[in-house]
């Protein structure tokens, strides 16, 4: 690792101020950033740790809305998001217990790895990404692999989810990394049916609109049995070809719909 200082502010305001420094970077749980630093793929002058900011932690419910602090660990979401079981289950299946004890929802969404789980939940449930300066709808937030609407130094302070009537996440796990080879989050609620796919596309997480349309009339696995996606912009790597991933999207979507009931 290159050398850098670590600052540990205790409020969002102080963290934003600290991130104003040249080449400063936010540190969430470090489960992605520390490996990146070890490979010398980043050379921040300073890391601004968000782990000491109490106002960014925890899960709370207000009517039909679940609010999760941006610094809340995957393990806490798994334990405390019982009002939205599909989300709690997703969080409880990220990586392994030690990763879940450190990794945070804000870090996952800021990173927007094309194979990460939380982007599928945020897009598939129509979440709002709350930052220190604004609220961004998930539909506007994800802008391709590792790209988001966040500005430099902008901190995800919370994520709010409308709790859907029905939802499920199905992940086909890449067994070595435990990330999604393909993961599909489906939900049915006030905002209609949403289907979000992670792990598959070169463009990062995306909504499968043809499946959403078909499911709107008939929310059952049968309604999408004939549907498939073109393999053109699917990821191809040693774990699976583009055609394999395109096929998995259909299979995982049907399984998710069946599981959502």
């Amino acid at each position: 690792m290159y050398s850098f200082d670590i600052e540990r502010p205790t409020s969002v305001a102080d963290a934003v101020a600290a991130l104003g420094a040249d080449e400063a970077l936010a540190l969430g749980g470090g489960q992605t950033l520390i490996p990146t630093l070890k490979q010398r793929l980043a050379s921040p002058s300073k890391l601004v740790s968000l782990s000491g900011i109490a106002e960014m932690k925890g899960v709370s419910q207000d009517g039909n809305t679940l609010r999760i602090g941006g610094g809340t660990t995957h393990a806490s979401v798994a334990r405390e998001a019982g009002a939205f079981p599909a989300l709690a289950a997703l969080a409880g299946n990220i990586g392994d217990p030690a990763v879940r004890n450190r990794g945070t929802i804000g870090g996952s969404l800021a990173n927007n790895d094309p194979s990460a789980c939380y982007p599928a939940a945020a897009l598939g449930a129509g979440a709002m990404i709350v930052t220190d300066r604004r609220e961004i709808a998930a539909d506007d937030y994800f802008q391709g692999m590792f790209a988001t609407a966040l500005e430099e130094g902008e901190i995800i302070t919370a994520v709010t989810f409308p709790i859907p009537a029905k939802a499920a996440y199905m992940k086909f796990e890449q067994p070595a990394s435990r990330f999604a080879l393909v993961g599909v989050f489906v939900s049915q609620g006030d905002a209609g049916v949403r289907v979000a796919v992670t792990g598959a596309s070169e463009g990062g997480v995306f909504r499968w609109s043809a499946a959403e349309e078909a499911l709107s009339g008939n929310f059952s696995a049968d309604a999408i049995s004939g549907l498939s996606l073109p393999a053109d912009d699917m990821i191809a790597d040693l774990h699976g070809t583009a055609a394999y991933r395109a096929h998995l999207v259909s299979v995982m979507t049907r399984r998710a719909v069946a599981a959502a009931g």
Partner: protein
Amino acid sequence: MTKVTMSVNGKSVSGEVAGNTLLVDFLRQDLRLTGTHVGCDTSQCGACVVHVNGEAVKSCTMFAAEAEGAEVATIEGQAAADGTLNTLQQAFQDYHGLQCGFCTPGMVMSAAALLKENPQPSEAEVRDYLEGNICRCTGYHNIVRAIMAASGQQVPAVAAE
């Protein structure tokens, strides 16, 4: 350099660390607690698992500065002061849950975290919880049996037998 103070195995310790000092390096190099191992240094193998405020974490993927004020527990704190192994450690010995022993500190610390959270796990739950702990020697069966035994449950006959 910044000063950090934390409790390690119940003892208050402090030291000067750089921003990029990993918790595992602080434990091994500054405190000479070399029971915590580094197998991969890429967050994959779990040989470096310790507890921070009661939760299992990979100490190769956490900065020492982040443990300021925390209670850290390592493998060195597991046995009694006179060297008597705790129940879990003894079960690893009794059921041959180790061969070369390199993964064992992480395995024991992960298993201890599991049993605190879930005192009577099923075999499937044990295997699931150890997803982030890799062992190149044992094939896992005896590790699972040791943990089942330590939780006071019947030890399953495992698939390979």
